[in-house]
Structures are given as structure tokens and as C-alpha cells.
């Protein structure tokens, strides 16, 4: 039997001890991690929301800060997962050789890559919860539908962790990640309706926006905050899941290739 780098991933529960390892590391530096990844987006949201929001009319029946809050949930979960999958994932794979140590045990590469995605998504979940807590505290939404933002944070995390790992799999070093953040993440933030509605964009850019995963995340989050069941929610979920599965598969193939060298 020939091992095939294009073989479909094999799932098992063996990712759990790796997740626990990452959690143990995280606990040791939870303070700075919370400040960096959780407080930062909230500060932006409050600053822009109140500062800029004071000069703006309501957008689609929402105050600007509520509008921005929906974008911030998605944007901060995307960022958490991306940073974790790229920088921390690369450190574990390359610099600290954590993966190498794990591969000498009965755990396989499929388990490791899956654990990276679930772990990065766990951090997204935490980011999402932090923003959600602020939304509730400030009374920006009173809808029970906002509880759906919790699984949404996880889904957005899975999606961007998977996509980010593709970069990690081909990265020669940390500097490489600047391309991804500058050429993918930053344009995505501006094209997908975090700060302003997508219909403000020229038609061509609206078409581009429609295929980007962050747009679909925001199209779910914003109505939820506004106490509305998102139109076409199944479609948006399928797109996000599709990106997650595709990213997982492509990154796994690339990691298999990289680590068989």
C-alpha cells in the first residue's frame, strides 16, 4: 500500500492531547494573549463606533456601533484564528519542532493538522465571546439570536484557521506571512463589510466581496444582532464550511509534502 499525499484526511480523537498541550501553554500566558487578541478589537470597536458613529446616521436600522459590532465579531475571530494558524502554528511546526516530537508518537500528521485547526478555532471562540460580552454589556443588542454568534465564531475560526494553515505549509519563514496579511486579510476587512456596507463598493468589488468568506460570516452576524434570522443562512454556512474543509484538505496535502522531505 502506497501512502498517498492526496489521500483524504483521517479523523480520530488523537487530536485531543495536542489541543490540551496548546491549552496548557496558553494558560501560562493567558494575560497577554487576552489583552492582545481580545481587548484590541474591542478598543477599536468602541473608538470608531462612538467617535465615527456620532457623525453617521443609522445603517439599516442599526446604530453605527451596533453595525460595527457585528463586523468586529467576525473580524476579531478571523484575526485570532489567522494569527494562531500562521505564527504560532509555524513556531510549533518549524521553530520549536513540536510537531516532530509528536510525530514520533502514535499520532499522525492528519491528527496534528486537525488539532491546529480546532485549537485556532478555540481561540476564535474566545475572541468572539469577548466581543459578544461587550455587546451585551453595552446593550448593543438584546436579541437572544446573538447566542448564535457563539457557534458562528467557532465556524469562522475553523474557516480562517484552515485557510491560514495553507500559508503556514508553504512558508519559508515568518516574514512570508506579511504577504497574507497585507494582500488577503487587510483587503478582506475592507471589502467584506466590517466598517461599511458592501453596497457602498463599485459593482466589480461587490462581486469579489461575494466570494470572500468574511462577507458570508458578516451576512450571518449582522442580522443576528439585529434580531433577524439571516436570509439564506444555510448558504452562508455552507460557504464557510466549504472554505474550512477545502483549506483543511489543501493544507494537509501541502504539509504531507513538506514534511516528507
Amino acid at each position, binding site marked *: *500500500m*502506497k*501512502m498517498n499525499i492526496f489521500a483524504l484526511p483521517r479523523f480520530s480523537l*488523537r487530536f485531543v*492531547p*495536542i489541543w*490540551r*498541550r496548546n491549552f*496548557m*501553554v496558553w494558560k*501560562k*500566558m493567558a494575560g497577554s494573549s487576552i489583552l492582545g487578541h481580545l481587548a484590541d478589537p474591542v478598543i477599536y470597536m468602541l473608538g470608531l463606533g462612538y467617535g465615527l458613529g456620532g457623525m453617521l446616521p443609522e445603517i439599516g436600522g442599526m446604530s453605527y456601533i451596533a453595525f460595527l459590532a457585528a463586523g468586529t465579531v467576525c473580524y476579531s475571530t478571523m484575526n485570532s484564528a489567522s494569527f494562531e494558524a500562521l505564527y504560532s502554528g509555524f513556531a510549533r511546526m518549524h521553530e*520549536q*519542532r*513540536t510537531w*516532530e*516530537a*509528536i*510525530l*514520533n*508518537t*502514535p*499520532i*499522525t500528521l492528519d491528527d496534528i493538522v486537525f488539532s491546529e485547526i480546532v485549537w485556532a478555532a478555540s481561540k476564535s471562540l474566545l475572541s468572539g465571546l469577548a466581543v459578544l460580552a461587550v455587546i451585551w454589556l453595552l446593550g448593543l443588542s438584546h436579541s437572544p439570536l446573538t447566542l448564535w454568534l457563539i457557534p458562528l465564531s467557532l465556524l469562522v475560526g475553523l474557516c480562517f484557521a484552515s485557510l491560514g494553515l495553507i500559508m503556514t505549509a508553504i512558508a519559508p519563514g515568518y516574514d512570508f506571512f506579511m504577504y497574507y496579511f497585507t494582500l488577503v486579510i487587510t483587503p478582506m476587512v475592507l471589502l467584506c463589510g466590517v466598517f461599511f456596507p458592501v453596497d457602498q463598493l463599485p459593482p466589480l468589488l461587490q462581486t469579489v466581496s461575494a466570494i470572500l468568506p468574511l462577507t458570508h460570516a458578516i451576512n450571518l452576524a449582522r442580522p443576528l444582532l439585529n434580531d433577524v434570522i439571516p436570509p439564506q443562512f444555510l448558504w452562508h454556512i455552507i460557504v464557510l464550511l466549504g472554505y474550512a474543509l477545502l483549506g483543511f484538505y489543501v493544507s494537509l496535502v501541502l504539509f504531507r509534502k513538506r514534511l*516528507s*522531505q
Partner: protein
Amino acid sequence: MSARNLRKCYGGQTVVDGLNLSIRRGECFGLLGPNGAGKTTTLRLLLGLIEPDAGELQLLDHAVPEEARGARLRVGVVPQMDNLDPDFTVAENLLVYGRYFGMSDKAIEARLPELLEFANLTHKRDAKVPTLSGGMKRRLTLARALVNDPEVIFLDEPTTGLDPQARHLIWQRLRELNARGKTLLLTTHFMDEAERLCHRLAVMDNGHIISEGSPRELIERNIEPQVVEVFGEHAAAWAQSHAAQHAQRFEVSGESVFCYVQDAQPLLRELQQRPQLRYLHRPANLEDVFLKLTGREMRE
């Protein structure tokens, strides 16, 4: 553990080329070879971490790489490069690693005192990895490889970069493990290490095994029993004109001449008449065999 006709190529270059190997339960087997000979690749193939281009592999009654996971449950690995978790303490490293084998926290905690004792790290239980010395880190890596109580232990250059005290302690520990019935497979380029520890050795170069046997057999089979090393600025000139008369074989390396002989007496008498030359007479060792088999030129 066995390999038959093993071959592995990387980008057109054959790193392991038709390798045959068979290691018995309970023995300490050494894989010797210069850098780039294919030692580490062979270990990775045996563990099922990379796939061979040809050949058959068997590890603890499991076909590798197909059933490598089952085999790795019963194997411990001490890698060449340190890959301990720098964020964790000594005890946490062992705990986290044991979990990868599916062990319960309770089972790992029960093994901790014995593992720490074995690694002489009981007093460092709660020290963070970056505060450990090189020797301590290597001992912790060895203890980590034992967390699942493996039957076979792979050691990739286990004492490279350690000071003599640290090396001797590692050697002592490896002999203890072997005495407890563990099979050891180690790679090294220290001949004294191989000679002290290994029951059997294989010398590898360019992806093949070029000689195999016990340290003594390798010496008897491959080289004359006596060596006389001659040093000094006149040594090379002396060798050109005189060495061949008294030595079966000689090699000039810089200002040293290595003479390999069955009987050293005639050569020693000759050298005693030449006070400008310094010399050293000793029995042939594994390093002589190694250099004869793999050549004296640098491998870079």
C-alpha cells in the same frame, strides 16, 4: 526489526540505496556513518515517518509504514535535535508526552518519579526547560522517550554536543536500559560510543551498509591489528621513502602518517633510530576501520 532492499530518493538523489538490516530483540545496534550517509533517513523510514521508494520494513511485527502507528506505540525516540516543549517544566514535558500515547494522567504521574530518578532530574522536576543544561535536556529527552515503557528505543546521535561527564552518564543509562531487555538502535559518529555500547554495528556510506558485525569483528575483518601513528614535520617525507618497507599499508594525513601493520616490531625499531619523529603505537580501533571504509576526505 528488519529492512529489506530499502531505497529512498529525494529529488533524484538516492539517500538510502538497497539497504538490508536486521536487528534482534534485546540487542544494542549501532548505525555508523559520516554526515549525509543516510542514517537519520533510515531511522525515519523505520519509524514510518517517511515512505520508502522501494523495499520492505518490519518493526516489532508490524509492517511499516502501513502499520507504523501500532509499532510506534511501543517505541521511544530520542531525536538528534532537541524538541522539548520550552514553555513547560520538566514534569509537564513528560506528562504532555505521555498523553500522546493515550496514557491517562494518573498512569503518567505514577511513572514520573521513576523517570525523573532515571534521568537524574528529580530536583529539577519543576524547572522550566530553557533553564536546563545541555546534558539535562538530553536526559529529559531520554526520559520522555521512556514514558510509554517502550520495547525499542531509537537514538539519533544521543551524545552529540555533550561534555564528557554528560556523555558518560548517558552511556551508563543506555547500558542499564539494554540490561533491562530494551532493544536500542542508535546512530552515532563517535567510534568510542559505538565500541562501548553496541553489540553489533553497521557502517553506512552513500546509502548502503558497507560492513556489519560486532566491533571486534569489524576491526578483525577490515584492518591490520596494529597501528603506529608517526607525527612531525619530517613524517611525510619519511613515509614517502621508508614507510612501505615496514608497513602493509600507510596513509598520510597532513603531518601525521598512519601505518597499519600485522607486527609493529620492525617498524618500531626503524622509528627508534629517528629521534626527529614522534610516534604512538596502539591497537587498531573502530575509528581506523571507519576511516578506511569511508575515506578521510571531509563530508560537507
